[in-house]
């Protein structure tokens, strides 16, 4: 059988504009942690959004299939699609302060998923939420349930969102830059927490980040994107030992490391950019030739 999440030839366009994703194909096996890396505008977040059915209105799917748990999401009616995604997948967002409703207490925001999607009773959901908050090492969960988001620190808010993402036992979680807004020491705690929760619940994880250091710690394999094109997919170990694509090598060379005072002042060379842009143009040319024939 095919992978748990299988994206086939997915192309997105900004309405009336260029392609944002260029025939992306990507498989995530059950329980696997897959990193999506690239610079801003590379389309890594768009993949996560497409999977969760939360693309902005201005973005349109023009081609492709997104198989989630043996169902092609793009063939479903919107209401069925929402139900399927809600029961199967969840999101850990980047900014916990904007993801939580500032005018509601934390408790109901964690239990919402259980009540709305799984049809639990509030009281049962409440009890489960307390368990979950304890599982993500929140001290005094009962007090946190009664708190408003602004009363919690950034790390605590992110823990709340992790608890809420795992609440309905999803089989896939999209984590979109979940630690970018945090201090390194808190980031380490949160990444360890996500890894532990992922392993315990056997959840597949699509981990969107621009930080190659984070990828090397969390992910089993990764896909590198440039301009909406997947330029390399490799197991993490292979990628860091011997990156296959010139652009990947340049990204690694541009990443500073405190262990090496000479690392990280090497901007991506012009030649590499030119070459990878040519690849993007090439992909577009062959897509147009193939694409218009359908009409």
């Amino acid at each position, binding site marked *: 059988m095919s992978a748990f999440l299988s994206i086939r030839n997915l192309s997105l366009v900004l309405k009336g504009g260029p392609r944002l994703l260029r025939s992306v194909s990507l498989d995530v096996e059950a329980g696997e942690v897959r990193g999506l890396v690239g610079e801003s505008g590379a389309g890594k977040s768009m993949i996560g959004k497409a999977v969760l059915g939360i693309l902005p209105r201005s973005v349109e799917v023009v081609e492709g299939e997104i198989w989630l748990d043996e169902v092609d999401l793009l063939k479903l009616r919107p209401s069925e699609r929402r139900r399927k995604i809600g029961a199967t997948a969840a999101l850990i967002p980047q900014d916990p302060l904007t993801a939580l409703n500032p005018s509601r207490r934390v408790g109901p925001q964690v239990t919402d998923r259980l009540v709305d999607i799984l049809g639990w009773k509030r009281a049962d959901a409440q009890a489960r939420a307390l368990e979950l908050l304890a599982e993500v*090492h929140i001290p005094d969960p009962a007090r946190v349930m009664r708190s408003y988001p602004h009363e919690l620190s950034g790390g605590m808010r992110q823990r709340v969102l992790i608890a809420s993402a795992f609440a309905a036992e999803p089989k896939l979680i999209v984590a979109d830059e979940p630690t970018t807004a945090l201090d390194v*020491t808190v*980031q380490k705690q949160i990444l360890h*927490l996500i890894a532990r929760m992922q392993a315990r619940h056997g959840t597949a994880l699509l981990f969107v980040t621009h930080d190659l250091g984070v990828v090397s*710690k969390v992910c089993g394999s990764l896909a590198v994107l440039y301009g909406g094109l997947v330029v390399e997919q490799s197991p993490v*170990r292979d990628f860091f030992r011997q990156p296959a694509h010139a652009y990947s090598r340049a990204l690694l060379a541009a990443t500073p490391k*405190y262990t090496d005072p000479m*690392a990280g002042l090497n*901007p991506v060379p012009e030649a590499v950019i030119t070459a990878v842009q040519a690849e993007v143009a090439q992909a577009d040319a062959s897509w147009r030739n193939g694409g218009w024939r359908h009409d």
Partner: protein
Amino acid sequence: MTDLYTVTDMHLSLADMVNKPLFGSAPRIDILHGLSFSIKRGEVLGIVGGSGSGKSTLGRVLVRLLEPSRGQVLFDGQDITHLNEDALRPLRRRFQMIFQDPMSSLNPRRTVGSIIAAPLKLHGFDRISVRVDQALDHVGLPRSFRTRYPHELSGGQRQRVGIARAIAMEPEFILADEIVSGLDVSSQAQVLKLLADLVADLGLTLAFISHDLSVIRRLCGTVMVLYQGRIVEHRASDALFAAPEAAYTRELLGAIPLPDPDQPWGAQAG
């Protein structure tokens, strides 16, 4: 080398608006607790710490956007601790600042040329047009960018405009507060390389505030680690990274995920 800055037992407290009663004045909270250090001419100092450690506040004291509540700050031998705005104005040219978010620190209604020219006019420079061109040359932007607006530029290019505006003033000291944290690694590398070259070419003294020790390692000769408004370690980069002394420095270094799957990055309770 002589000291450009000498800071002695500097304290800073600010009004705690979160706990301000409806009537009456807000209680004071202490942000910086008796810092003493000096910055030598030509030094590139990295200031690192977690959020809330006081690193940006310290930076703002150095360029006297904030006034210390106790202690003394000497700039080039002159006491600037409590100078008023009129007395500070002639000094402001000499210490410049580059900000974190170029989108909010560059006026969206002004062209790049007039953004760089504005402080020059304010400080009565001559040959302003020539100076703007030179500043653009220094940061590697084409002169034709004078007529562009900030929104037409990429993040890295905007940050270069911020740098151009600062160096056009021919300052002796530049404070750079998290200037690469919003950038992709490739633009980050470009901006850091540019900054390193400018510091060397123009003989600048630089204080570089960052939460990222890897970036500091690449750029800075000395490092100051702040924790809850106190200096926990302040040493030459090579020595600090070879053998960090303070427990907090070790914790910071241990938390950084290196791009290396074989780095031990031990599990911890949390």
